[in-house]
């Protein structure tokens, strides 16, 4: 195995999928331009040609809808939305069409589609260039949502998503692009719906998504110096999320903190907290605490951003509260 960055792992998944399967193609804004995609799609157009790496006009509805249509016809499109915020202009093809199609037509027609959405938080980008909207999409039956936190999963989840046969929303976070990790050079899949235990512990379960996994691991280091052993679960798939791994961890620890760098109200953390409270109440020895963004749009000024985004320290504080 070699170490690759998260962005390189995404690129390798694209390249190997396209080499392996002529049905796979890429469409979206900036797919031929590192300005949008960083190194995550670099030179794919040179390797596979502009017919299969289609840089689209600013037309989220038509681009995403065309990908849905191509998927219905048996292709394996990957649509790229370099800033997830703009994806909201494509809510009809995603929510009304792709998500419903299999059910509406009793499974006679399906939509093997991957929609890749990038979160660009921070850097004074403000409210409309940085949103983490996983909860919106996790709400919709028929959509699967994945959020890789490591280079290994960045590659493996993309491969699994393309081969799933259903519409899958793949959300990656620009904050993670330079993270390094071991990535096999084979074409492997990370199964959808399976969480990973990133660190074992017996006192508290920290369930985290995407970049919060790294914050949770850092928090666990700090907590360990204070005698608290946190178990860190990387959710990896937001919908459907892995009840088995989460439930079994809480059976052991009796305490839970959920960290998701998105808004608190009606969010992914709310769903996990409600499910655990509803089905595992007897196992809990402390209230569940959510570490999420405040219910406000993202501000631009750096001083406000620092107050807005949650981090390892917030997780430490939350865990200590559950231990009292």
């Amino acid at each position, binding site marked *: 195995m070699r170490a690759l960055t998260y962005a390189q792992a995404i690129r390798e998944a694209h390249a190997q999928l396209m080499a392996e399967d002529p049905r796979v193609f890429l469409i979206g804004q900036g797919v031929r331009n590192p300005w949008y995609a960083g190194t995550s799609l670099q030179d794919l157009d040179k390797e596979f040609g502009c017919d299969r790496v289609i840089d689209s006009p600013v037309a989220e509805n038509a681009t995403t809808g065309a990908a849905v249509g191509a998927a219905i016809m048996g292709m394996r499109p990957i649509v790229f939305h370099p800033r997830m915020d703009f994806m909201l202009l494509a809510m009809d093809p995603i929510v009304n069409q792709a998500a419903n199609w299999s059910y509406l037509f009793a*499974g*006679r027609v399906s939509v093997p589609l991957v929609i890749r959405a990038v979160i660009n938080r921070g850097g004074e980008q403000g409210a409309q260039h940085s949103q983490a909207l996983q909860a919106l999409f996790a709400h919709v039956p028929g959509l699967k949502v994945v959020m890789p936190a490591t280079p290994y999963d960045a590659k493996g989840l993309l491969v699994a998503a393309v081969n799933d046969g259903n519409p899958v929303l793949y959300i990656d976070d620009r904050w993670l692009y330079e993270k390094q990790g071991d990535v096999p050079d084979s074409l492997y899949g990370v199964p959808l719906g399976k969480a990973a235990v990133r660190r074992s512990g017996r006192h508290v379960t920290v369930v985290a998504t995407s970049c919060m996994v790294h914050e949770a691991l850092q928090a666990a280091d700090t907590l360990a110096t204070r005698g608290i052993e946190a178990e860190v679960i990387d959710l990896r798939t937001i919908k459907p999320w892995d009840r088995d791994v989460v439930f079994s961890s809480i059976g052991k620890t009796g305490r839970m903190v959920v960290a998701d760098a998105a808004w608190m109200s009606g969010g992914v953390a709310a769903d996990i907290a409600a499910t655990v409270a509803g089905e595992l109440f007897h196992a809990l020895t402390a209230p569940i605490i959510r570490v999420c963004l405040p219910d406000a749009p993202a501000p631009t000024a750096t001083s406000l951003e620092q107050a807005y985004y949650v981090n390892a320290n917030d997780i430490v504080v939350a865990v200590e509260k559950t231990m009292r």
Partner: protein
Amino acid sequence: MSQDGHENREVSDERLMSCFRGMLRIRLAEERIGRLVESREVRTPCHLSIGQEAVAVGVCSSLRSDDTVWGGHRSHGHYLAKGGDLNAMMAEIFGKATGCSGGRGGSMHLAAPAQGIFGTVPLVAATIPLAVGAALAAKLRGIDQVAAAFFGDGATDEGHFHESLNLAALNRLPVLFVCENNGYSTHLALQERRLKDNIVDSAELHGLHGCGVDGNDVQAVYAAAADAVQRMRAGGGPALLECRTYRWCGHVGPAQDLDVGKHRQQELQEWMQRDPIARVRERLTSRGLGQDVIEGLYRQATEEIDVAVEFARTSPAPDESDLLQHVSVARRGI
């Protein structure tokens, strides 16, 4: 009647007969659906295309069986004209397990994949980009399959329409955009929604072939569609066909909705004088088709519809245990 092969200008007797049969079948099926709605035996919203049959039949007659059609909420005609099974459509409208969508879709969600119908949906303009995607799939596969998107004039008010025209033109995709301009978007007349009555001009604007035709003349629709499809198969890129027609019934259900728009009553009478089915019938009669043959066609279609309604009535309802099936399909591939 020309037999010299210039079918684009003069449609053969055989094709005209086939169009007549197809239009009649749609008309009679929808009239029956209208009665079933009135008697409340059918409860799902049914949007009837009575008066617009020439567009569905004219366009679908220009397509091959492997070409695809993409429609909206008013798609009984598209489904039947493309070869969708009548029994399965009627059963779907009745909400039965034998329906073409297993009873999950109703009138607005029709599918017949083997006939190139991969799903119709009521979100206005939603299937226009999907048709672009089907054409993109054909291009990437290197096959000369064409996608036809049917939509009303209301759909041209949506961004989907303009984005799709641009995307298709840019990539020279074989999409036939078929606007069935029936004058109304639900209750609102065209002149209340647009300053200009110029939908076909969108073709020029976006760089694709455009053509405006009398949508109540099946021969004209067929000729224009066949010409556009021929261009597309030769790599000529997409085309927009604006078919001027009229919706005899209201937006939904069999009522005429005369209270909608102050000119509606007069308009309706004028357009009924231009009944697309009567026009074909007269043309065929003038070419020597006997009254007995015409009556035979009516009888044949009526009997077929009787059978379909009986099939729908006696089919089982979907089982409750099926409720959560098909939200996702089983995993495929590696």
